[in-house]
């Protein structure tokens, strides 16, 4: 083997580690015949820890591309660490979820690790073909995860909906990609953005000057595929049903890891085509139009998500709509089409990680206690399980965007970038949206604390409660001491140089 090949393998060591973990998990699950899923879970966690360690080892290296299509850079690193952290958190939830035991949870870990491998390639490739491959690997794993409760109609329905919507949107996206390929003669984003000369591969800017309509159509089609993945309007319809029907740990995975992966790939796509240092002026100008389109999508997404969340009786469904609204907030950062805007979006995503994981952890805990995901069933539980309920209030505050929490600081950063990009109307809409969101987030706090104390006893779940409490502390502390997260988000933007 030659040196370049070995170097390339070194670049994708984390991916290799993840794959090995997935295989090991499969073998262990077969050996224990599904009897001891906890051991499988701990093995998955160990593998994830090793992957994280390899990712940290890559941290700070100068960006490079291996095998011609996998970018090894801090941007990818950000989203990979994010994914590892999210999958690890969901694994902890699975370990704690007594109700999932009967479903042979060994495969859970395998499917989730498979999805994570897909995410890893999705967020680190500059080649649209590999992007679609990563996306499909993520999607296929997610479909099976959503339908994991094989006997449960809701779960089966969720999986079916997910497959149909997912297949359709991937088709649309692929069609857009094929148009882009036809127009430029390449699948590589950096070539699309910066190829010189008239021969193939041809820059998108040249094509734009010749005939703007096909370029616009192709871009809109590709963006639709991304919009589906991040559940932005008008491609959000699948979200509430799938989130509600899927087992709660899976919903957590979809809401946090899968959505962030969509954002990661979208950020790279937009960054490479329109924002990065080397792109031609015509494309940068065109980017501001795409930005305006994204701003519109952002406004519609957050408003629809928030208004629909107001009426929900199920906490799970409420969180699904709230996750749509949050996709709208993150899109503010993207529509700025600037490095600072992107870094604000990435900060918000890490805030979203903390507060949403926390909220889902809370949901999981109470599903275990009450056997239901309705908000009514939480009535008076505040005094029964005070710690996790108080921590939940911190998540709710953060989701609303009230200080002193990460959610507030994230929103502040987004607002600054929005105003700076001349999108003050969008910022005002987002600000008013947080008032709407307060109304439904407070319904949870109201049920917990304002109703008379419940008679039901709460089960002690030290691991779960401890984990969620740690997330809650991080939500508040990182909202006051904001430096680490912000520095991380800013240093991860090397793809734009």
């Amino acid at each position, binding site marked *: 083997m030659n040196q370049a090949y070995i170097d390339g393998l070194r670049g994708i060591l984390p991916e290799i580690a993840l794959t090995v973990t997935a295989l090991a998990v499969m073998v262990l699950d077969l050996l224990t015949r599904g009897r001891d899923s906890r051991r499988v879970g701990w093995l998955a966690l160990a593998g994830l820890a090793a992957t994280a360690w390899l990712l940290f080892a890559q941290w700070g290296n100068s960006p490079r591309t291996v095998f011609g299509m996998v970018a090894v850079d801090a941007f990818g690193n950000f989203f990979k660490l994010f994914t590892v952290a999210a999958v690890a958190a969901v694994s902890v939830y699975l370990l704690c979820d007594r109700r999932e035991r009967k479903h042979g949870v060994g495969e859970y870990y395998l499917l989730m690790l498979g999805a994570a491998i897909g995410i890893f390639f999705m967020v680190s490739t500059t080649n649209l073909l590999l992007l679609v491959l990563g996306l499909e690997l993520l999607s296929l794993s997610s479909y099976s995860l959503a339908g994991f409760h094989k006997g449960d109609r809701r779960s089966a329905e969720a999986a079916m909906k997910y497959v149909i919507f997912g297949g359709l949107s991937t088709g649309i996206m692929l069609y857009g990609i094929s148009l882009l390929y036809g127009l430029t003669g390449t699948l590589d984003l950096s070539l699309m953005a910066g190829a010189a000369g008239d021969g193939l591969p041809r820059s998108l800017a040249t094509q734009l000057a010749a005939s703007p309509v096909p370029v616009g159509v192709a871009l809109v089609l590709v963006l639709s595929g991304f919009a589906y993945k991040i559940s932005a309007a008008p491609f959000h319809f699948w979200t509430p049903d799938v989130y509600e029907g899927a087992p709660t740990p899976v919903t957590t995975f979809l809401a946090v890891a899968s959505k962030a992966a969509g954002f990661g790939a979208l950020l790279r796509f937009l960054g490479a085509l329109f924002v990065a240092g080397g792109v031609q002026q015509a494309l940068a100008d065109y980017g501001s139009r795409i930005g305006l389109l994204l701003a519109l999508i952002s406004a519609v997404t957050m408003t629809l998500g928030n208004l629909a969340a107001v009426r929900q009786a199920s906490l799970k469904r409420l969180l699904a709509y709230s996750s749509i609204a949050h996709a709208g907030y993150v899109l503010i950062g993207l529509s700025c089409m600037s490095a600072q805007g992107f870094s604000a979006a990435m900060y918000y995503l890490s805030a979203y990680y903390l507060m949403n994981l926390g909220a889902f952890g809370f949901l999981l805990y109470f599903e275990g206690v009450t056997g239901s995901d309705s908000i009514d069933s939480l009535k008076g539980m505040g005094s029964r399980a005070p710690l996790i309920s108080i921590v939940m209030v911190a998540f709710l505050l953060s989701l609303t965007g009230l200080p002193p929490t990460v959610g507030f600081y994230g929103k502040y950063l987004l607002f*600054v970038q929005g105003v*700076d990009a001349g999108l003050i109307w969008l910022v005002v809409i987002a*600000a*008013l949206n947080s*008032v709407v969101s307060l109304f439904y987030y407070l319904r949870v*706090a109201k049920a917990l604390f*304002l109703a008379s104390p419940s008679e039901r006893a709460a089960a002690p779940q030290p691991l779960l409660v401890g984990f969620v409490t740690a997330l809650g502390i991080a939500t508040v502390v990182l909202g006051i001491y904001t*430096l680490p997260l912000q520095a991380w988000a800013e240093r991860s933007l090397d793809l734009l140089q």
Partner: protein
Amino acid sequence: MESQVLSWITFIPLIGMALILLLPKSALSAIKGVSLAATAIPLVLATWVYFGLFAKGTADLQLVQDLPWITAIGAHYKVGVDGLSLNLVWLTTLLLFIGVPASFSIEKAGKAYYALLMLLEVGIVGVFVSLDYFLFYVFWEVMLLPMYFLIGIWGGPRREYAAIKFFLYTLAGSVLMLVSIVALRLDSGTFDIPTLVELARQGRLTGANLPGGGELLGLQFTTWVFWFLFVGFAIKVPVWPFHTWLPDAHVEAPTPISVILAGILLKLGGYGMLRACFPIVPDAFRTFAFALAILGVISIVYGAFVALGQTDFKKMVAYSSVSHMGYVLLGFAALTEWGMSGAALQMFNHGTSSAALFLIVGVIYDRAHHRDLNGFGGLAQVMPRYWALTTLGFFAAIGLPGLAGFVSEAMTLVGAYDSANPTFKVLVLISTLGIVFTAAFLLWAMQRVFLGKLNPKYAELSEINAREVFCQAPLLILCVVLGILPWYLLDWMQPSVQNLVTLLSGGQG
């Protein structure tokens, strides 16, 4: 210690809260003791600052403490006081201190109650001492959550509705404020409120550094900022037509919380305008001063008129707050030194008199378990001492000469009459209607509750007890003392007020 005294005043209640959370639920008397201590120490410190550390003859910000906080966005932890904020800091520490013994009759979930009360004090004091807009906003929002729970858990029958209405209204105002803060930060590159004021004085805060170059939809940047900030603060004051949360919140809140709401939270709105709205966009303020004056007059007359129609004792007092806070806005808008001093004085005096009125309502509600003004009668015969205290409180609220309310209302009206804009004279005439209505509803209430034939149902009511007197006494004493010696406030405020009036009139400071 001296340079950090404001931080101690702000954060000692937070230490108190931590201690309370560490105590077991059953140790209620220990919790009460900690709460008393955690509110008494800030009161002592604030008194020390007021009479000892603070230098009276200057408009400068004093006892400033400035530490870098979030360096990435240039937010500082910067606190300090001047004549405008110091008296309100002191009032806050006093009312919170009174709030603790006033809460002793509350039995439900005491631990959570006192912990939230402590957190509330942190938020309120924090707003009054912040000199950094980011910090200001953080404190501004921090106090919402404890207030929500304090009303929502310990309030009256419609507490859930009242609590969420309070929260939503205030948040609606404050998100607009946040947008303005973001825009100001981008335009000026700083969160520092004194620097923003200085930039505005030099005419350099016009939004020129923003995309759009200081214009949006045909309106100037400063106009947008002014209205966004003003509405944010006006909701808190509350100015008509943003007042509708107030009757609900006041009526449903437990007595000590009503006291704090009326006594201090409303002042946050007025103070916010003086500190962080008017001087930052002085040109827009001058342009719209007359509109503000009209809103003020409507609040004065409307509040008093609606109070006249109430049969619920507490709701009547709540509407009287709308009326009394109207003077504050009128005084600001007049842009004269008398008007401004009068308005600032009115904020303090309303803080003492309305707090006393809510305590008075609380006394009778604890005994009779209702507040229907028509359901009493002749209580003066059973509770003569209570009646005496009530009379004093009512007269202070009416603005009887010799009591504090008179000084501030008279100063406000005289100041408004002197305004450069002659139309203000008409406004002053109209607002005197408010005085008449106020006298009418308070005297009528007195007649229905205390005079006339004794309602036999209440012949056995017990007289006001020592704890209740202890809570009311400082407030009523202040009403009397400041009616005779108002310069105990005015001397402290005056340099800052002069400075503010010069700034706002566009003269050289």
